[in-house]
């Protein structure tokens, strides 16, 4: 029974739950068993409240038995990146700073998922405070890529991607500031959706860079990503940046929207630095769309391609330096035993609590905002950000979506790039500009390298047009079977 449930899509599982063929308890037990079997090698999870998940599953089965099932997600386990608050569960951000922190409140997405009957299933590893592209910056050790345990799963939502790819849980939540959902989805061969900035509430998401962070969904299929998105999207009065938009029925939209579409291919996203196997796979995907009758247009995003990473690392680190000031060892979190005065509590707790990448970014962000540098760095970066957004707006006037690789490289070896932060930053070259422009982006599997590593296709959509973007992605997925391939673990 248990093995049969592994790697089924959430949509399939929901149908079986609805038909009474399986129970939520059986499903949770299957996930727990799988986690037991593989997570010692994959290390996707920081923790998992097994008793809580089973209790929630029992409650779900009871609702269903009483004819009060709450919809397709009732009884479906959902893994949480360890940066999203669930009341009574750890919220570590994979940092020593918060190693013992237990959240006294629920994030808005958590409340919405609980209301939908979904079962919070475990806390997923990540780069510390979502800063990184490999999950190697976790204070609790790296997560391995299920396709090759010697390689990184990508990051920062590496645990969320690996847990799905390893069949430990059908759906996970991640967060994406510069590619942190899409890049690990690509490297792990799953679907990862970063919604438009403002579509999903950030309340309860520990902030990295507030103007860029967005919670999104990770799943086996486009349909699953849409299902989970429908449950978490929508305006939240607790998040001032959350948009007052209607949330359509994304799954209905998938069925309804058939194209053909006008699709843009940004010329600059296929230049130097792109792994040739990835370039070839993505070009094949583009050919698929052309054969489907889509109009393929080459478009230019010169500013995005040239300046996005520079803009990103100025804005994101500046915001982070301020956002992470709250981790001071006073009200919660790690307090240094060596501290004898308040200054010591600050300096020592933060020195002991934060890892090197977090420290590096805090220092950089502090510099960017400091007296005498603000205009040259932060203000200028914000202006170039405006130009990058304008560039996307202009291109998307004539295109329904853009197609590109998600990552220039497939999963790299653990430790391969950790000594050179700038080289690591450059792996986000195709994803970062999407965050700067606030647009929705999705990565879907589009092949494998000769070495058997997954390749991701990135689709970029218009603001708040997730329905359209998902439909374009669905058209590809329906005609291919990449998403049905799974690593042997």
């Amino acid at each position, binding site marked *: 029974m248990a093995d049969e449930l592994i790697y089924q899509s959430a949509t399939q599982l929901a149908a079986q739950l609805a038909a009474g063929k399986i129970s939520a308890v059986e499903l949770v037990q299957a996930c727990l068993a799988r986690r037991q079997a593989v997570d010692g090698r994959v290390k996707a999870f920081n923790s998992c409240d097994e008793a809580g998940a089973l209790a929630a599953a029992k409650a779900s089965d009871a609702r269903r038995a009483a004819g009060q099932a709450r919809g397709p997600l009732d009884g479906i386990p959902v893994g949480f990146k360890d940066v*999203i608050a669930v009341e009574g569960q750890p919220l570590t951000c994979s940092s020593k700073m918060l190693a013992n922190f237990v959240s006294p*409140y629920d994030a808005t997405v958590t409340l919405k998922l609980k209301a939908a009957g979904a079962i919070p299933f475990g806390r997923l590893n990540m780069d510390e405070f979502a800063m990184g592209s490999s999950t190697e910056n976790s204070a609790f050790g790296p997560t391995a890529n299920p396709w090759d345990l010697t390689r990184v799963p990508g990051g920062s939502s590496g645990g969320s991607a690996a847990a799905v790819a390893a069949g430990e849980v059908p759906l996970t939540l991640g967060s994406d500031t510069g590619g942190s959902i899409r890049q690990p989805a690509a490297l792990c061969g799953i679907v990862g959706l970063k919604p438009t900035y403002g579509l999903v509430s950030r309340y309860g998401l520990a902030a990295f860079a507030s103007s860029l962070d967005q919670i999104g969904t990770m799943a086996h299929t486009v349909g699953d990503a849409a299902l989970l998105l429908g449950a978490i999207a929508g305006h939240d009065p607790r*998040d001032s940046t959350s948009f007052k938009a209607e949330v359509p029925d994304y799954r209905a939209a998938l069925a309804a929207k058939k194209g053909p579409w006008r699709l843009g291919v940004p010329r600059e996203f296929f230049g130097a630095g792109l792994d040739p196997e990835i370039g070839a796979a993505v070009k094949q995907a583009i050919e698929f769309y052309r054969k489907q009758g889509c109009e393929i247009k080459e478009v230019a995003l010169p500013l995005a391609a040239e300046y996005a990473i520079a803009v990103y690392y100025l804005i994101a680190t500046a915001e982070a*330096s*301020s956002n992470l*000031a709250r981790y001071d060892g006073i*009200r*919660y979190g790690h307090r240094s035993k060596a501290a004898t005065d308040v200054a010591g509590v600050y300096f020592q707790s933060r020195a002991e609590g934060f890892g090197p990448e977090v420290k590096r970014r805090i220092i950089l962000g502090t510099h960017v*905002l400091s007296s005498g540098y603000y205009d040259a760095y932060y203000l200028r970066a914000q202006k170039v950000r405006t130009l990058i957004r304008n560039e996307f707006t202009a291109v998307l006037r004539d295109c329904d979506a853009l197609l590109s690789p998600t990552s220039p490289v497939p999963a790299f070896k653990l430790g391969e790039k950790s000594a050179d932060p700038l080289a690591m930053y450059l792996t986000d070259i195709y994803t970062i500009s999407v965050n700067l422009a606030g647009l929705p982006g999705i990565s879907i599997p589009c092949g494998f390298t000769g070495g058997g590593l997954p390749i991701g296709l990135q689709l970029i959509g218009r603001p708040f047009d997730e329905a359209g973007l998902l439909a374009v992605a669905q058209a590809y997925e329906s005609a291919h079977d990449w998403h049905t391939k799974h690593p042997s673990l």
Partner: protein
Amino acid sequence: MNYEAVIGLEVHVQLKTASKMFTRVAAGYGQPENTLTDPVVLALPGALPVLNKEALDKIITAGLILDCAIAPVCKWDRKNYFYPDSPKNYQISQYDQPICVGGTVEIELPGPSRNVMGEHKKIPLTRIHLEEDVGKLNHGASDSLVDYNRAGTPLMEIVSEPAMHSADEAFAFLTALRTAMVQGGISDCDMEKGQLRCDANISIRPVGETKLGVKVELKNLNSISFVRDGIAHEIRRQVAVLGSGGTIVQETRDYDGQTGASQSLRSKEMAHDYRYFPDPDLMPVKVDEAWLAVIRPTLPERMFDRQRRYLEQFQLPYTLTSVLVPSLALGAFFEEAAKLSGKPQAAANWITNDLQRELAAAGVELAASKVRPAHIAGLVKLVESGVISSNIAKEVFVAMFATGEQADAIVERKGLKQSTDTGELEKWVTDAIAADPKAAAGFKGGNEKALNAIKGAVMKASKGKANPQLVDQIARKLLA
């Protein structure tokens, strides 16, 4: 050498809202420690701020009362600094686009005597912006304890231009500002509860010099009289330093109101680098004419405008107006009593003297007073129409205050009507003359004052009910 002081004030005023500035947990004072918190107040991971609309309405109200320009667009910035009472280690504030720009506070300086209006001035403001308060540190012998109940309370910072030149001006500024804020319903401005706090920037320069001297920031001026005393002390200190050949150093000093002395606070970080940047969690605010049009009708009449109206429209003496105008409620009470009685000055006298005295003695707020404007009007009418004498009226007032009965009912019940029965009056006067032949003889001999003894005796015999004018006439007639 003669020096001129130059003083600018930074005043923090807590807004009177039900919930906090950026989250909806209750704001309040005197609650058990850390019971007014939530994820936002404690800056838990993931918490986000959302503006309190009422706080915006209140600061706009303040801005309009003080003649500020209300910015069409304002935004929110983070001021980054670490302190244990600051949960996020940044304060959400407004840096380069505050909501209120410019403005003035009209002040009145002490007059030559308390019966004479002093000089009025308009002290210009630089700006008013909105921010959030911090928590409270309680210092023990070996450690400090932090209570975050106050953290996140809406706080308005009002910055004056360096345009005051004496401790008296600063005192008058703060008094007028407090009155405006209380009357606008913006804050209760209770300094003991920290609802109004004041820092002063003080420098001195030789008279005639236009360049500003080195400024000293004076902190912890936690009562209005400490503000006056502290500033006066600092000016004297600076004059003494310069007078003895010393130089003023730019520093922050702490004024101790109890000892009347100040000491330098050693600034750990002399040059602050707050790294202000726009808060990405909060959207800017646009204030349009339609919003202002909703607020304008709710603005109270400014205190000095009202005082000028009382002086002109009601012809009240200055001393009475200066009692009536600091309280909106007392002013409204007076205006109602003036209207009902048709005798503003008489009504004002009763309210500012007798009513105020009785309220104070009984420890009762005006709102709880049993004496309402109609009572005052009734009493004034009885006196004006000669039904009771002023002396009897005092007695009637005390009874009214105690019971809430109308004056005419009390007069009726107690039989206090003034006697105009000439037969009865003649008997009292005749008896009084008989009882005091010496006074009678004195008056007849030309001593006007001797008549007072006779009249006094009549008033005593009549228990005050004798009409004084008639008594005077009759006595003169009988002693003629």
